[in-house]
């Protein structure tokens, strides 16, 4: 026997390159399957056909545990402060040659570099995991079920898992929250409950079905190669407006001097300009509402308020241009108006005039 092996070993060394790569296989033959090879020998002796002879042998296919977790897409999830049910998506695939359960764990980074390069500096609240129950690839609240494990995932099957959380209102533009999803191979015996953690067969090979881990290391802490776990990371990046508000005033005229070097005497007209700036690189701000209680010693000049004007120069020494559109209203001594969308790097104003009582 040893001679045969030796000869074949030499031969295989020569032909390995010729035979080329192993055919593309994913899960392949099921774990525990028996491969039976039977050969039949027919022959004659003295011109008479003899009874055919069969020879067979069996081999048992071992269980190869391979699983992957992969972020769907390759971009951060952009979120607004205070937003709820924000989603990152992962594909969890069982490439083992057996049906298994996949235990799931969602975790948040605590500092360090997140999946898309930013530095993790906040956590989401109310973090949960959901499976894409209706298989449409997007999270549907109330339809996609909360899960802690994936039940009875067949060889080569995959599921989409969503990590869903809420963004604190205190988060600021550019803040990053990193998350990881870890899947762990568990026994697939029995639908409806999570099986025990699968362990690798230790010690020598046995003729029966052995279990071998063949998974790669993942980015989550504690996910090494060949440990029956797989993981991937993703992150949330806060996209928020960065607004600054400046208020400036100027005497326009007084009843004595007119508009030439006017003074702040009773009856003088004073203009106010409320300047709202959104810093470059921020998110656009919508529905910016300004409320300004008018000083008791002043009276609003009817129809003198203008919204969405432009501003020249830098606050507080620049000029408030009178190019807005009429708008805004006074109620109970407070002027209020709503500006249009303020894109990143732009400025809008609310302009109005009062007279001094």
């Amino acid at each position, binding site marked *: 026997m040893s001679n*045969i*092996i030796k000869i*074949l*070993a030499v031969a*295989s*060394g020569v*032909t*390995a390159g010729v*035979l080329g790569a*192993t*055919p593309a*296989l994913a*899960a*392949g*033959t099921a774990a525990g*399957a028996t*491969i*039976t*090879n*039977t*050969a*039949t*020998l*027919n*022959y*004659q*002796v*003295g*011109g008479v*056909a*003899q*009874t055919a*002879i*069969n*020879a*067979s*042998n069996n*081999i*048992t*296919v*071992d*269980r*190869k545990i391979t699983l992957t977790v992969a972020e769907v897409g390759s971009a951060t999830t952009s979120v607004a402060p205070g937003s709820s049910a924000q989603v990152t998506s992962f594909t969890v695939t069982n490439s083992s*040659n057996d049906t298994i359960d996949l235990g799931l764990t969602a975790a948040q980074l605590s500092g360090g570099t997140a999946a898309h390069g930013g530095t993790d500096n906040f956590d989401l609240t109310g973090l949960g995991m959901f499976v894409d129950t209706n298989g449409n690839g997007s999270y549907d609240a109330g339809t996609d079920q909360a899960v802690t494990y994936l039940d009875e995932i067949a060889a080569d099957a995959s599921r989409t898992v969503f990590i869903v959380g809420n963004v604190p209102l205190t988060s600021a533009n550019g803040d990053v929250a990193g998350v990881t999803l870890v899947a762990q191979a568990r026994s697939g015996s029995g639908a409806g409950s999570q099986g025990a953690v699968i362990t690798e067969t230790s010690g*020598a*090979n*046995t*003729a029966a079905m*052995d279990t*071998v881990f*063949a998974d790669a290391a993942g980015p989550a802490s504690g996910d090494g190669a060949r440990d029956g776990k797989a993981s991937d990371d993703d992150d949330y990046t806060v996209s928020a407006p960065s607004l600054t508000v400046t208020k400036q005033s100027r005497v326009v005229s007084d009843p004595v001097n007119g508009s030439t070097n006017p003074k702040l005497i009773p009856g003088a007209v004073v203009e106010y300009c409320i300047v709202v700036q959104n810093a470059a690189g921020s998110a656009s701000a919508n529905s910016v509402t300004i409320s300004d209680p008018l000083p008791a010693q002043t009276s609003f000049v009817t129809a003198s308020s203008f919204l969405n004007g432009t501003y020249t120069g830098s606050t507080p020494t620049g000029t408030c241009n009178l190019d807005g559109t009429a708008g805004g209203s006074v109620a109970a001594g407070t002027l209020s108006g709503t500006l249009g969308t303020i894109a990143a790097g732009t400025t809008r104003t609310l302009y109005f005039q009062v007279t001094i009582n």
Partner: protein
Amino acid sequence: MRIFLTLLAILAPSMALAANNVTLSSLVFVEKAVPDGAGRKHIVLEEPKSVMPGDRLVFILNYRNAGRLPASDFVVTNPLPAAVVYQGGAESAQVSIDGGRNWGTLPALRVLEPDGRWRSARAEDVTHLRWVLKQAIPAGAFGKLSFRGVVR
């Protein structure tokens, strides 16, 4: 008891001649790449205790004519297990790609593609292997047939 023993003595030689004069055994080994510590890998054959999809198998059929007469018209037929893809290594064998109805060499066999075109058969199309030995196996002679496969 004595009668039975006598009968046995008479029957024994003819039984041996009829049934047990040719033997066939089937063996399978797994090819494993073992690093030799110098950056290269040696391929060794192991007992098939650890077999997983993608593993390369070597099947060996040993035959022996233990009888006293030559065995002629010697044909060994080996259907491939469903979980095994043929990988060559049996160039002296005829192959079949249709369950053993038609036999030939790989280039001679044709496969009808779904688009209606014909192509030459490839190793993965093979369903059966057959060795037809032209010469009789003399009494006491033995030999070995082998082929390679990969676990699906």
